């Protein structure tokens, strides 16, 4: 890891965190190396505040920490910024809403354990912004985690009358396979007609999602004498 000015690290972190950051957050960035002193961080933040004083954005301290925000007097221009007409969505968004639909009421931790990967606050916030999920209650365990469920708006968006219109999970796969075949026929122009006897020697490839994981976690075992 090369030497980097603390101020630059703090600056880049503030711009990419998507939430206000506290001094503790900055210290947490230094996992592999000796963290800086809190005093040094405060000095860097102050320097940044001064450097941005005359710019289009400013570094402010709000209740939950430090954050950059645009100067209020630029609003007249910025309001003309066109939001993207069709914003991009990630697979994480799709998977998260699908899990909530099937497993509600569910906590974020539980979603993460099904996905096998962290679910960012941003995704939960976006789904709430779309009004597709809401907090139903809080679980009576330490931390009182929120329990999420889908909304009427979610059902409406996908033209569902109620949740039981969602295909049962067990059928989902078979259906998809059937639909795929149908789809194959639909896009037939791109496809060659394959004589049936050739199909026999060309068994379709099976999906082997487990394989990679197997290789990673369970590499070749060499038997020791």
């Amino acid at each position, binding site marked *: 890891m090369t030497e980097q000015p603390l101020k630059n690290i703090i600056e880049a972190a503030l711009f990419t965190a998507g939430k206000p950051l506290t001094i503790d957050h900055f210290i947490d960035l230094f996992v592999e190396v000796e963290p800086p002193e809190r005093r040094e961080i405060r000095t860097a933040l102050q320097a940044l505040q001064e450097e941005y004083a005359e710019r289009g954005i400013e570094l402010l301290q709000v209740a939950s920490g430090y954050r950059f925000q*645009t100067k209020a007097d630029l609003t007249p221009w910025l309001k003309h910024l066109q939001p993207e007409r069709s*914003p991009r969505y990630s697979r994480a968004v*799709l998977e998260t809403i699908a899990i909530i639909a099937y497993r509600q009421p569910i906590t974020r931790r539980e979603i993460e354990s099904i996905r096998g990967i962290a679910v960012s606050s941003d995704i939960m916030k976006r789904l709430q912004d779309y009004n597709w999920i809401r907090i*139903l209650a809080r679980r009576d365990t330490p931390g009182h985690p929120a329990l999420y469920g889908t909304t009427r708006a979610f059902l409406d968006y996908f033209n569902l009358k109620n949740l039981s219109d969602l295909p049962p999970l067990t059928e989902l796969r078979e259906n998809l396979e059937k639909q795929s075949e149908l789809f194959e026929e639909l896009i037939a122009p791109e496809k060659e007609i394959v004589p049936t006897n050739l199909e026999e020697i060309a068994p379709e490839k099976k999906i082997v999602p487990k394989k990679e994981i197997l290789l990673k976690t369970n590499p070749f075992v060499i038997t020791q004498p």
Partner: protein
Amino acid sequence: MSEHSEVEVSSEAKAIVQGTQLDILPIDLYVPPDALEVFLESFEGPLDLLLYLIQRQNLDILNIPIAEVTRQYLQYVELMQEFNLDLAAEYLLMAAMLMEIKSRMLLPSTKENEPETDPHEQLIKQLREYAQYKEAAQDLDTLPRIERDIFLATVERPDIPKEVIIPDISWSVLLEAMREVIERAELFTSHQIMQEPLSVRERMSLILEQLNSLQRIDFLMLFKLEEGRAGVVVTLLAILELAKESLIQIIQEQPFETIQVEL
């Protein structure tokens, strides 16, 4: 062929033995059949396998000892068949072509029976081209990219309410995502997604919502007679499931008093 998972091991490493990456399988290594399957499936097709055989021996693509490479290639293909691997037909075609090239080389070359496209030259051209793009793919993977090496700098605009635009997500895309989740979830055996009637989970959400606004509710109020027997069962199951997960409490303060449900 690992087309169905985003996460995979480094493409160069064929195996990891006691923490060390092996790029080349040791000769005379006893390989358990499962591992062999993984090894063979790490190839992106017959060209990739051929390249591996050639590069393993530091051979020049332009000057391959066809007889030797064919022998090794056929060995692998036989192995795949032996283990009943789903062998893509391309592997067999390549085997056929290698044998064709080999036999052609045994024949005395005469101008008349020289085909317009020499399969040997054709193969070398193919291999070179594929090798190029294989390398290009590796180069691409090392380019700095969003989410991994660089992050976009954004700033809040607190004074302007953010307009929410819902992305255009099609139903089929959502189902596809769910299918992938199921596949992945099956790897986490402790978190099997169970088969459970969705109507119960939906009712669980509805009950929690009702309790959110009322705090405490008469047990019987949760049932709607017009839903019939099935509706009653669904509601009952939902209440029991919520109670089991300690999300609600079922209270009866005095015997014969009405049963209450609260958060």
